[in-house]
């Protein structure tokens, strides 16, 4: 994993994609509050443990990782970076 | 092998080092301090670790860590310090870690005094810490046995993954006698379950927490099964003049030495008295006592202790009411004299 010091500087804005494992999410909302792009939201539905899980709105992620480090669950959030021109997967 | 004259507190450490002990954590307290001092002197010479801990509690927890990491680790203290260590001892027993703790008894309760006493029998033999566990307890009565038990204790600790106490008193700790050490130098066994360095160690967990009641009950049952094996296999006792004895003295540690001298004198007078000396206080020599109690010639037992009567309960449990079990004790750090014991034993015989 590239550290911040070694991360290449980019002219074009990074594009990312967030995968949330809903059953590991406890709906605390920390990632929603932290996301600078405001692309995360809590769902009205409940997961199997009775929490309102978070979801990625589907667009706008810049792969900054702020949500990852604000989330207390080790495996609930995975952040991907998209290649130039690559399209996010359809969920 | 030639003999060398040493203090009990010194001999136990040199024995332990021959047995592969290379880690010592301790805290100074009279009359046990020479144990730490001896370890402080020799450990650096043999590639070992000595550290004077900030407290007895820290010392026993360092032992917990070192034992959990696979070392043959040791600590020592006396009365008040042993009380403080009991938290760690319970964790060590619960996590099934092998280690050796030397307890050099002094006068109590409270700060008491520093003279030799056996009032720590209850806390060491019957528990002291919380929960369902037992310590293996060795009770040396000479400097030679301090050295021998320093070696034996580690073998037992590793064999059963259990804390082993060496319980004795200030007199045995402080006195000097000739000692003969074995030629054998032990390299401790590799412990697969220990934490440490390497991928093979990574799955290992040292812990005594079992949140689920059924799991904890199963763990306690497993410990009990181990304790049963120890009871079956590790009882040690010395019989002295018991072949025709009508009165059986039961004593350990320094008291057994004085009693032996008293019995020598009484035997010359024709008094049929002998002694059973527990070498292991747990497992307690119940079979031996039970067998003696069943002998028709044996009329009574006399337990002599430097306490208010602690081991005597174990003797009574073993004798199961078949014969009277009398008690004579001194406290305050007073060692009964030979003359005093001759008087006591004679009174008991005539009673």
């Amino acid at each position, binding site marked *: 994993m590239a550290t911040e010091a070694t991360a290449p500087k980019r002219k074009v804005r990074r594009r990312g994609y967030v995968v949330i494992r809903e059953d590991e999410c406890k709906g*605390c*909302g920390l990632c929603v509050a932290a996301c600078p792009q405001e692309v995360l939201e809590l769902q009205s539905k409940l997961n199997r443990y009775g929490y309102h899980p978070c979801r990625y709105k589907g667009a706008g992620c810049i792969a900054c990782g702020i949500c990852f*480090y604000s989330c207390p669950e080790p495996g609930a959030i995975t952040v991907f970076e998209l290649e130039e021109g690559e399209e996010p997967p359809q969920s | 092998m030639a003999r060398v004259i040493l203090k009990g507190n010194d001999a136990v450490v040199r024995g332990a080092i021959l047995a592969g002990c290379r880690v010592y954590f301790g805290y100074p307290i009279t009359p046990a301090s020479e144990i730490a001092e001896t370890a402080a002197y020799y450990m650096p010479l*043999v590639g070992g670790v000595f550290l004077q801990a900030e407290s007895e509690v820290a010392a026993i927890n360092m032992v917990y*860590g*070192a034992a959990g*990491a696979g070392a043959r680790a040791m600590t020592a203290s006396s009365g008040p310090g042993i009380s403080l260590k009991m938290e760690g001892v319970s964790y060590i027993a619960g996590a099934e870690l092998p280690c050796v703790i030397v307890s050099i008894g002094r006068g109590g309760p409270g700060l008491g005094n520093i003279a030799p006493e056996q009032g720590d029998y209850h806390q060491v033999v019957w528990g002291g810490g919380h929960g369902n566990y037992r310590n293996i307890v060795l009770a040396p009565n000479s400097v030679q046995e301090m050295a021998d038990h320093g070696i034996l204790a580690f073998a037992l600790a590793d064999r059963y993954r259990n804390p082993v106490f060496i319980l004795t008193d200030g007199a045995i700790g402080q006195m000097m006698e000739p000692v003969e050490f074995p030629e054998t130098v032990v390299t401790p066994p590799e412990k697969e379950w220990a*934490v440490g360095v390497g991928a093979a160690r990574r799955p290992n967990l040292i812990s005594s927490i079992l949140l689920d009641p059924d799991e904890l009950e199963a763990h306690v049952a497993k410990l009990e099964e181990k304790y049963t094996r120890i009871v079956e296999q590790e009882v040690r006792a010395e019989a002295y003049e018991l072949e025709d004895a009508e009165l059986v003295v039961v004593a350990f540690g320094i008291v057994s030495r*004085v009693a032996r001298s008293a019995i020598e004198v009484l035997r010359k007078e024709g008094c049929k008295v002998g002694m059973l000396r527990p070498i292991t206080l747990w497992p307690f020599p119940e079979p031996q006592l039970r067998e003696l109690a069943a002998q028709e010639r044996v009329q009574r037992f006399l337990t002599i202790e430097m306490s208010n009567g602690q081991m005597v309960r174990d003797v009574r449990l073993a004798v199961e009411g078949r014969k009277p079990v009398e008690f004579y004790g001194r406290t305050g750090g007073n060692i009964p004299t030979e003359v005093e014991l001759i008087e006591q034993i004679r009174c008991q015989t005539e009673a």
Partner: protein
Amino acid sequence: MDVKFAKPKSFYEIYERKPGANKEGIHYCPGCGHGIIHKMIAEAVQDLEIQDRTVVISPVGCSVFAYYYFDTGNIQSAHGRAPAVGTGVKRTHPDSIVISYQGDGDLAAIGTAEIVHAANRGEQMTVIFVNNAIYGMTGGQMAPTTLEGQRTTTTPYGRKKENEGQPVRVAELIDALEAPVYVERTTLSDVKGRTRTRKAIRKALKYQSENRGFSLVEVLSSCPTGWGVTPVDANQWIREKMEAVFPVGLLRDRAADIEARPLEPRPFVRENLHQLLEIPEPGTGDAQAAAAQGAGEMQHVDERYRNPRIKVAGFGGQGILFLGLGIASTGMELGYQVSWLPSYGPEMRGGTANCSVRVSSDLIGSPIVAETDILVAFNKPSLAKFEPDVRAGGVVFYDSSLIDASPQRDDIEAVSVPATQLADELGNTKAANMVMFGAIAEKTGLFSLEEVRQHLGGYIKKKKLIPLNERAIERGATYVREGA
């Protein structure tokens, strides 16, 4: 599509040790800071490639179950004792990486001694101190870091400094010590703080992997459940309340002053162990065995002095215990059974000292000398105290240069030796004890003078003192032999 941020590999994929059906989620409450800190530790362990040698210590508190998650060596420890347990692990395996993970009750209340001293020793470990100002596991009681006025279940009217004192600033406390290499306080309350925390944890572990010493990272973390607020509001409370009391920032980083040092090898020494321990080496002991044969039943000794029970008594500093040791040691070398039992403790520091010595051709029962065959008294109180214990027909040696009275009893033999004066004439009053040894040997025949001289080296460590001691022994013997 590249994975940019994902669950670190040093977490278990599935948490098999965790009870219940959910083995993929952690046990902490929603919004709890522990999970974030765990994640940062796991990431650092992974990136520094130290997973195979890391041992995480789970404390008592909510993080008692840290071992469910970290795919490393794990030890669960008693409340507050993690730094002591870590010390045991690290000293056993200096190449391990020890992480002491502790909460505020664990570290700053019940474990204060352990953390301060581990830090003071510069113990090579990393302490991650999670400060959330409350006891979470036990249900929201006051912690040592609970803020003034903060309500908890044990401060229902708010913490008052008059009653509970003020919050303990751990990072500052540790920073007051000389040894730690790195101390920093960080916060989880905002993005900047979390970035800083992640770097701090990584730095602390890196320093340990370079053997630079003790590091502590205090992390201000939230306990939404214990505080009774939402996770998002909890972060705000950290920012507004906690950070005012616990200032965030670097307190020290002395890595530049401390070289990254390789581990010193500490081999398990087996070779020459007897020699190192100063105990007889295998194959020795023939001389003693031969002596034991010759010693037999002590027939050559006058019956009055055979198998003697000896008491030596005097002031501390007169070499009382040493004389006793000399007698016992010589007896041992000659193949006898011997015992030496000192008075010990405060009484030997400036007060009176005495020891019981037995030399016997048989196994020794009691090492305690009550009824005394030979009393050696170096001062008046000792003579008065122990004279009554001398058996009828026994012998008393007393230092007549210091005792201006003679023994009162007429059923015992009294041998007056001005030992201190004779020693003074030899140039050192400290040799009085050995003057007395010479007198005892000469009088009782227990040992010959030659035997005493021959075995001096067995208990006199400073070899240059042996000639003086030889002269002292000779002088005492001459005095007894010639009466002057």
